[in-house]
C-alpha cells in the first residue's frame, strides 16, 4: 500500500490559484539547524488562521544525514500526512535530484541554484536561489551561516506563498525571545530571502495562503509535551526513565515543567522525583517499586524498552501494582527505524509478559487525548491496581500539532481503594487480595502507613492467597487469576469509550491513535470520489468497550485501518469477537511514515470493488 503510484503528471501550464491547500517540504541535512526555520513557517501559517500540521522526517543520526520537514496547510482542517508535495525546498544536494524526481507534476521547487535541478524535470516550476551568496551578504560571521541560511528560504517561501510577513516576524520573536542578537540576525536573513524573491522570482505555481479564522485560540504543541503535561496535572510523583527515541522528549519536557511548576512553595522542595535509570529494566522496576509504595509512578519508552520490561510487567499484573507506561511507538521490529512511526506494539503491550496477562491500554489520537489519557491512565492504574499502557507514536509524540488549549481537569485525582491503619481495622478481616466489593478490585495499603502495621502484607509474583500469603494451591490460584481477569475487564466500562460516528452506513471504518487523521480525510474522499458513505469507530481503550462490538455488528463490512504489518489490532478484535471475525478486513500501512488518506482511500476503494475478496484477509 505504501507503494501506491503517484497520479500521472498533468500537462504543464499555469494553473488556477490553489489557496490554503498545499504541502511544503523542506529537505535539509540534520544538525544544520533548520528546525527553527521550519517552525517559523509553520507558526506563521498557523497564526494566519489556517489549519496546519508539521511532520519532521529525520534520520537516526545526529548530524550530516538527510532530513525532511513537511508542512501541510489545509483549509478543511485535514492535517494528516499527505504524500504529494506541492512546494519543495531543496537545501540538500544529496537528495535534491531524487526529491525532484518524486515530486508530482506542477510542484514548485525552491533550490540552491548550484544544484541545477531544472534539468531533471520539465513539468515543475523551478525557483533557483543563490543561497550561498545571499547568506554571505546578510551574515558576516562565517560560522553562523550554516544556521542562518535556513532563514533565507523562509523569506523565499513567505514571498511565494504570500505568507504574512508580520506573522513571520511574530513567530521569529517567539523563537528568539531571549536572544535579541540572534533575532536580529535571523530577521535579516528572512528579509534577504524576501527581497531576493521579490526582485528575482516570478510566481508561476498556483500555491498560496490567505488569512482564515480556523486556528483562533488554538495552541501548537507536540504530543510528548502534551503527555508530559497530562502527567504533571495527574499529580505524578515518581518518574523513572531511560532515554530512547521517540520517547525521550516526553520525560525531558516533563522535567522542565516539573522544575517550574512542581516545587512546593511552602518548603521550596520538589514534590516529585525524576530518575534517569540505567536501563529500562531498572526504569520499570523503580516505577513498580514506587507504585507499590503509593506514588503515582510512570515510565516512558519505545518498543525495545517494552520488550525489556516484559518480566516486570507480569509482576505488576500479578502482584497488582499500579504504574503507568508510555510507549511512544516507533518502527520495529528490533532497533528497526528508530525515527519512523508505527503502531507496532499494540498486540505486544496488550498481552505483554509470559503466562496469562492482559493489560489496560489507551490509544490517544491527538494532543488533547495525549494530555487527557495521561491523566486517565494514572486514575485507571490506581483504580485497577495494575500497570496501564498509554500508546502513542512518533508521529503524535514528536511532531507539532494544532489543538484546542488544554482543559483543566474537572475530576479530582482518584487514588483508588487505599486503606490507612484505621481503615484496615474497620474492615473485618482485611486481606490484600480479597474481593470485597465483588468487582475484582481489592483494597490495598501502602508500606509505611503510620500505625501498628495492621495493613502490612507481603507482595510477591509467586502464588498467593487472599491475604498475600504464599500458596501453591491450584484452587486458590485459579480463584485469584480469575478475579484479576474480571478486574481488568472493568476497562470495558471505565476506559474511554470509542468515538463513534454512525449514520447507518453499511461500511464501517475502525481505527485508533494517529491513524485517525487519515481516516477523517479518507472518509471525505471516499464519499466524494466513490460515493461511499462510511461510519467510523475510533477505538480508544483495551479491553474494548462493548460499543466496539456493537459497531462492528451493525455494519456489513468494517475496515480496520492500522499502521503495522500484522494487523495487530484486527487480531485482537478477532480474538475478542470471534462471531464478528469475518466482518473485519485489514487495511495496513507500515513503511514508517504516518499513514495518509490517499493510501487508505485507494485501498478501501479497491477492496470495496470486490468486497468478498477482502474478507478474511489479514
Amino acid at each position, binding site marked *: 500500500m505504501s507503494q501506491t503510484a503517484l497520479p500521472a503528471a498533468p500537462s504543464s501550464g499555469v494553473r488556477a490559484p490553489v489557496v490554503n491547500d498545499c504541502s511544503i517540504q523542506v529537505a535539509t541535512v540534520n544538525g544544520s539547524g533548520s528546525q527553527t526555520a521550519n517552525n517559523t513557517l509553520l507558526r506563521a501559517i498557523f497564526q494566519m488562521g489556517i489549519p496546519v500540521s508539521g511532520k519532521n522526517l529525520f534520520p537516526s543520526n545526529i548530524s550530516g544525514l538527510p532530513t525532511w520537514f513537511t508542512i501541510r496547510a489545509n483549509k478543511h482542517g485535514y492535517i494528516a500526512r499527505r504524500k504529494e508535495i506541492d512546494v519543495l525546498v531543496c537545501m540538500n544536494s544529496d537528495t535534491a535530484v531524487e526529491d525532484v524526481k518524486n515530486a508530482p507534476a506542477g510542484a514548485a521547487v525552491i533550490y540552491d541554484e548550484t544544484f541545477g535541478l531544472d534539468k531533471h524535470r520539465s513539468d515543475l516550476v523551478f525557483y533557483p536561489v543563490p543561497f550561498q551568496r545571499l547568506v554571505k551578504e546578510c551574515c558576516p560571521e562565517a560560522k553562523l551561516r550554516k544556521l542562518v541560511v535556513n532563514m533565507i528560504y523562509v523569506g523565499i517561501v513567505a514571498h511565494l506563498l504570500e505568507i504574512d510577513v508580520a506573522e513571520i516576524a511574530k513567530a521569529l520573536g517567539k523563537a528568539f525571545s531571549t536572544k535579541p542578537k540572534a533575532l536580529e540576525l535571523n530577521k535579516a536573513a528572512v528579509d534577504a530571502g524576501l527581497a531576493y524573491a521579490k526582485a528575482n522570482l516570478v510566481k508561476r505555481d498556483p500555491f498560496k495562503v490567505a488569512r482564515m479564522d480556523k486556528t483562533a485560540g488554538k495552541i501548537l504543541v507536540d504530543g510528548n509535551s502534551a503527555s508530559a503535561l497530562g502527567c504533571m496535572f495527574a499529580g505524578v510523583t515518581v518518574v523513572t526513565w531511560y532515554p530512547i527515541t521517540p520517547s525521550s522528549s516526553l520525560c525531558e519536557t516533563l522535567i522542565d515543567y516539573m522544575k517550574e511548576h512542581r516545587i512546593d512553595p511552602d518548603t521550596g522542595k520538589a514534590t516529585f*522525583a525524576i530518575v534517569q535509570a540505567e536501563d529500562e529494566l531498572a526504569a520499570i522496576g523503580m516505577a513498580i517499586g*514506587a*507504585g507499590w509504595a503509593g506514588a503515582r509512578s510512570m515510565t516512558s519508552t519505545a518498543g525495545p524498552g517494552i520488550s525489556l520490561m516484559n518480566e516486570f510487567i507480569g509482576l505488576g499484573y500479578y502482584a497488582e501494582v499500579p504504574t503507568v507506561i508510555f510507549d511512544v511507538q516507533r518502527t520495529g521490529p528490533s532497533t528497526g527505524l528508530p525515527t519512523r512511526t508505527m503502531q507496532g506494539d499494540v498486540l505486544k503491550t496488550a498481552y505483554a509478559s509470559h503466562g496469562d496477562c492482559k493489560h489496560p491500554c489507551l490509544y490517544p489520537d491527538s494532543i488533547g487525548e495525549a494530555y487527557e489519557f495521561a491523566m486517565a491512565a494514572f486514575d485507571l492504574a490506581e483504580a485497577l491496581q495494575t500497570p496501564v499502557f498509554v500508546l502513542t507514536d512518533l508521529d503524535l509524540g514528536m511532531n507539532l500539532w494544532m489543538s484546542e488549549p488544554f482543559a483543566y481537569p474537572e475530576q479530582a485525582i482518584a487514588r483508588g481503594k487505599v486503606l490507612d491503619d484505621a481503615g484496615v481495622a474497620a474492615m473485618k478481616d482485611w486481606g490484600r487480595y480479597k474481593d470485597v466489593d465483588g468487582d475484582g478490585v481489592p483494597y490495598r495499603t501502602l508500606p509505611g502507613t503510620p500505625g501498628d502495621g495492621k495493613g502490612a502484607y507481603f507482595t510477591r509474583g509467586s502464588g498467593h492467597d487472599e491475604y498475600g500469603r504464599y500458596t501453591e494451591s491450584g484452587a486458590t490460584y485459579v480463584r485469584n487469576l480469575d478475579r484479576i481477569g474480571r478486574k481488568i475487564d472493568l476497562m470495558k466500562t471505565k476506559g474511554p469509550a470509542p468515538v463513534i460516528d454512525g449514520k447507518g452506513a453499511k461500511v464501517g471504518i475502525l481505527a485508533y491513535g494517529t491513524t485517525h487523521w487519515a481516516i477523517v480525510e479518507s472518509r471525505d474522499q471516499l464519499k466524494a470520489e466513490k460515493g461511499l458513505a462510511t461510519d467510523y469507530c475510533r477505538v480508544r481503550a483495551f479491553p474494548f468497550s462493548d460499543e466496539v462490538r456493537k459497531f462492528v455488528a451493525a455494519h456489513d463490512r468494517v475496515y480496520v485501518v492500522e499502521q503495522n504489518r500484522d494487523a495487530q489490532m484486527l487480531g485482537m478484535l478477532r480474538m475478542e469477537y470471534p462471531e464478528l471475525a469475518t466482518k473485519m478486513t485489514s487495511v495496513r500501512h507500515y513503511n514508517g511514515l504516518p499513514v495518509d488518506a490517499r493510501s487508505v482511500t485507494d485501498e478501501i476503494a479497491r477492496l470495496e470493488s470486490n468486497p468478498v475478496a477482502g474478507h478474511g484477509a489479514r
Partner: protein
Amino acid sequence: MSTSTPAVPPAPAPAAGPKVNRLGLPVTDYQGAKSTLCAGCGHDVITNTIISALWEMGVEPYRVAKMSGIGCSSKTTNYFLNRSWGFNAVHGRMPAVATGALLANRNLISIGVSGDGDTAAIGMGQFVHLLRRNVPMVYLCENNGVYGLTKGQFSPTADYGSKLKSGVVNDLPSVDLCAMAIELGCGFVARSFSADRKQLLQILRAAVAHRGLAFIDVISPCVTFNDHPGSTKSYDYGRANERPIHELGFVPTWEKAADEVDVPAGGSMDVDMPNGGTIKIRKLERDFDPRDKVAALNLLRECHEKKEFLTGLFYVNPQAENFLDLLDLGPAPLATLPSSKVRPSKAVLDQINEELR
C-alpha cells in the same frame, strides 16, 4: 492438598511482661512467618539476627520495607517482621524496586535481602547502579556460592577451584562484592559469617544507623548443596578459616548512658554516625582503620589472593551523601502528598496554554 505456608500465629499478649524494646514492643512483634528453608540453612540464622537487630534498635515495624529478589535467601524477608511490608520481586531486580519504593516514601527503612546469584549474576547491573547512587538502605547478600533454589549450580561468588558435590570444579574467579561496593563508593561495607551471630548482630545494628547504602556480604552456608569438603562456603570451612579483622559493637544514642551494650573492651576506635550512635571498634591483630578506603581495598585484595576469609566492617564513611539527599525532596513522603501539592493550579495551565499559542 493445601500447600499454604502457615503464618506464625500471633504472639500471646505479654502476660508476665516479656522484655520489651524502647518502643515497648516484645521481640515477638519482630518475628515473621515460619521459615520453609532447609533445617540448618545459614539464611535462617541471618533472619533471626535481623529480628534481634531491629528489635534491639527499636525500629518501628510499620516503617520497614523488606525488599528481595528470588532465591532461598530472597524468601527470607517473609520470615521476619510480619508487621512490615515485604516485596519479593523478580530475580535480580530488587535494587530497582527498592529504589522506587524509597522515592515514593523516603521515610521507609528499607532492608533488602538478596542472594549471591540474585546479586552477582542476573542482578549485577542493578547492584552496581544501586551502589553508585548510594541509595539509603541495608542490603544483605546471603552468600552461599551457589544457586540454592535451583539446586546448587555455581554462582559468580563461588571461589576459583571450589568444588560442587558432584565434583565439578569452579574454573572462574569469584567476584568480591565487598571490593566492588567500596570501589563504587558505598559508605558502609562489611562481611560476616552466619555462624558468627554475635558479630553480624553488631554490624546489622550499625548498618541500620547508617544514612546511606549499607552493604553486608554474609557468608551463609547452603547445607543442602554447598556444605561439603571442597566447598569454601561450608560451615566447616567458615569455622576453620574465619578471621575477624576487629571486634566491634554499635552503641545507639539512647543506650550510651545505659551502657548495656556488648562493647568490645580495650584499644577502642569510635566512629560516630550522623543519625546518632557510635560504632566502637577494638582492633585485633592488625592495625586497620575502616575509614581508610585504600587500606580497605588493599586488605580485600590481599585476602583474595591469599584466600583468607576475613570478616568485619571493611569500610565506613558515615558522611557520604545519599541518593535521596540529592533529589531535594521535602520531608513528607511523595506517596501521600495531597492533591493540592501535586496538581498545579488552573492559572499554571492557563499560562502554559498561553506559551503554546
